[in-house]
């Protein structure tokens, strides 16, 4: 059952990911990215990470993608017209990607340490959200507060960057 769900959502995620790379129109790319993130959130839920799955949909498929679409519409981008392809650059990029994929496949499929099934959780009645919250506030309290400062700095930076001219 879980295996079938895994294959459905993994194939959806990868197919929409390919759509992001190979579609000409930036708006279609952005919508493909939304669907890819939703499928990824479903994969998180097959891993019993309900909190991360919900956050993924709220933050990525919601906030971040609305920002992307907003900017694409604001800049009024049209379809990319076909340019003269820089063949050397294209071949170089393709070579790097192919070598990376080959290395990754060799590592994942030959190491025996990765080939074990999912162990059962000892106490499945404990809520995943409560445990993530407990870990966040007990083990990672200082990083959590630093992240708060980071968000403030990012907000101020964005306001400064989008001013017409700096004084």
């Amino acid at each position: 059952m879980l295996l079938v769900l895994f294959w459905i959502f993994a194939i959806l995620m990868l197919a929409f990911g390919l759509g992001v790379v190979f579609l000409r129109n930036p708006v279609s790319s952005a919508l493909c990215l939304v669907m890819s993130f939703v499928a990824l959130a479903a994969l998180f839920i097959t891993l019993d990470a309900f909190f991360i799955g919900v956050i993924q949909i709220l933050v990525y498929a919601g906030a971040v993608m609305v920002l992307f679409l907003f900017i694409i519409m604001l800049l009024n981008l049209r379809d990319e017209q076909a340019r003269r392809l820089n063949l050397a650059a294209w071949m170089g990029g393709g070579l790097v990607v192919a070598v990376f994929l080959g290395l990754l496949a060799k590592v994942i499929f030959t190491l025996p340490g990765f080939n074990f099934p999912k162990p059962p959780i000892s106490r499945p009645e404990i809520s995943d959200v409560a445990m993530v919250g407990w870990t966040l506030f007990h083990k990672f309290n200082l990083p959590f507060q630093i992240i708060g400062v980071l968000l403030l700095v990012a907000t101020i930076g964005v306001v400064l960057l989008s001013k017409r001219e700096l004084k």
Partner: protein
Amino acid sequence: MTLTLAHYLAASGALFTIGLAGVMLRRNIIIIFMCLELMLNAANLSLVAFSRFNLSVEGMPNYSGQVLVFFIITVAAAEVAVGLAIIVALFRARQTTHVEDLDSMKF
């Protein structure tokens, strides 16, 4: 055949490769930025998979991995906001989002 850690790592690696291909092959700066997000998410998937498959001593998932994913999502949100503001400023100055037209710092 059961669901193993290698399945999730393979899906994560494939998603990362798609993102890398987009960064290498596309020339529109907004698409490149979207592909960066794909690569960040591929890393998140392998972190959550490792957290679920390597249980802690009490037999619960290793929640430190999921907290790290939470931090990555937060930093990615801040990064998208700043990056898109930079792209808008760039578009105002140059009227283009094509990276081959932005070559004034090229040697």
